[in-house]
């Protein structure tokens, strides 16, 4: 992470007036968005606290940064996600994998606080709060509609997700998360009813698994959730044979591998 990672947001109100309640709500919701993105970018590591490094009162402007140096660059993901969702047109193809479902819900909540009569009208986000702002993105009331469109988009397919199992949740719903090896996205897996699946999920915690079932994707192909039908470990047998160079010398006999594959593909 860059040492100077920081996020600045400027709140704009109707007639240049920003009510205290709207400011407090917006700060809470933006902080939650930042923490949720940081959690995903850190692949489940507990988010570190962020601190305020600059406050300006003309149009209330707040700059925050992580309290301690982290290896996770959160601000670029937040800004890229905001920019992707705020952009006009179809489902944003460039929505970053780390800007997941929780971040989208957070953004929707931020949007709920915009355009209330007498409240906030829009918020401008940027990086490099202490120097020249970069990657400036502005969101207004239309962001809710954009988030809804992203959340509504997508498709389902039967398949499997491979990755590390993490974060079992048993209150306010039962689910665990599998961190998709391919995209790095957290994929939510509702735990089927009964003790059997709960125990399997617990046993799978922190291990790599193949989780099969009905996968729900965002419109840009990022996996979002999977209805679990089967789980099996991707464990390596420490005692078993290893695939070394030349480990199976006669795997295709004397045939050239390119010709062999060509023949398979005929």
């Amino acid at each position: 992470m860059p040492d100077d990672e920081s996020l600045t947001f400027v709140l704009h109100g109707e007639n240049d007036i920003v009510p205290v309640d709207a400011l407090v709500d917006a700060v809470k919701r933006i902080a939650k968005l930042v923490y949720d993105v940081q959690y995903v970018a850190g692949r489940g590591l507990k988010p570190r606290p962020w601190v305020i490094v600059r406050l300006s009162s003309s149009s209330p402007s707040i700059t925050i940064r992580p309290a301690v140096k982290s290896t996770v660059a959160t601000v670029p993901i937040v800004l890229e996600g905001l920019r992707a969702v705020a952009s006009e047109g179809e489902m944003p193809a460039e929505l970053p994998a780390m800007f997941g479902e929780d971040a989208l819900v957070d953004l929707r909540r931020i949007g709920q606080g915009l355009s209330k009569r007498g409240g906030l009208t829009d918020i401008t986000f940027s990086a490099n709060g202490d120097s020249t702002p970069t990657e400036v993105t502005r969101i207004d009331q239309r962001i809710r509609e954009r988030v809804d469109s992203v959340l509504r988009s997508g498709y389902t397919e039967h398949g499997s997700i491979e990755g590390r199992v993490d974060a079992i949740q048993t209150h306010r719903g039962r689910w665990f998360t599998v961190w998709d090896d391919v995209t790095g996205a957290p994929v939510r897996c509702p735990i089927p009813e009964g003790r059997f699946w709960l125990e399997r999920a617990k046993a799978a915690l922190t291990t790599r698994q193949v989780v099969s079932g009905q996968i729900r994707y965002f419109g840009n192909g990022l996996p979002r959730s999977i209805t679990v039908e089967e789980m099996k470990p991707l464990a390596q047998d420490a005692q078993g044979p290893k695939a070394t160079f030349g480990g199976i010398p006669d795997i295709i006999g004397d045939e050239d591998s390119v010709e062999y594959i060509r023949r398979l593909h005929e």
Partner: protein
Amino acid sequence: MPKPRRLWCSCVIIDYLKGAPRAKPCEEIIDHGTKGELEIAVSMLAHAEVVKVGGSSSDEAMIQEFFSRPYVVSIQVDRRVAEEARRLVRLGLMKKPLDAVHAASATIHRISVLETYNLKDFAEVAGQGSPALVVREPIWDGQGSLAI
């Protein structure tokens, strides 16, 4: 942080297991994978193509062991990959749909390096995708493409 990622075609894995002299650089690539410095992406299609017909359970265990390594990332042949493969064939960039599945696995997942010994059949797909796809034989050059 994302790790550099390269995609291997089935012929590369076969040559590695076979011990073909040209696959010697794969050892170094794997060594860096083991150290957590890079990832090797493979299409799920490779799981079916890398096979020892009539092989022993030990051969099969070895193949399974390779595909279950933490730095070997297996890419589903899902709708997006299949549609991209169809696009590559339709545009004449790939001749065979199954070859196209390997190429599409790279372009869809923004993997900028596809390593194969079949440079001829993959020649036209070079430059596709974002970042632009590089097609080459396996080589350890100290870096790879960044998985995004």
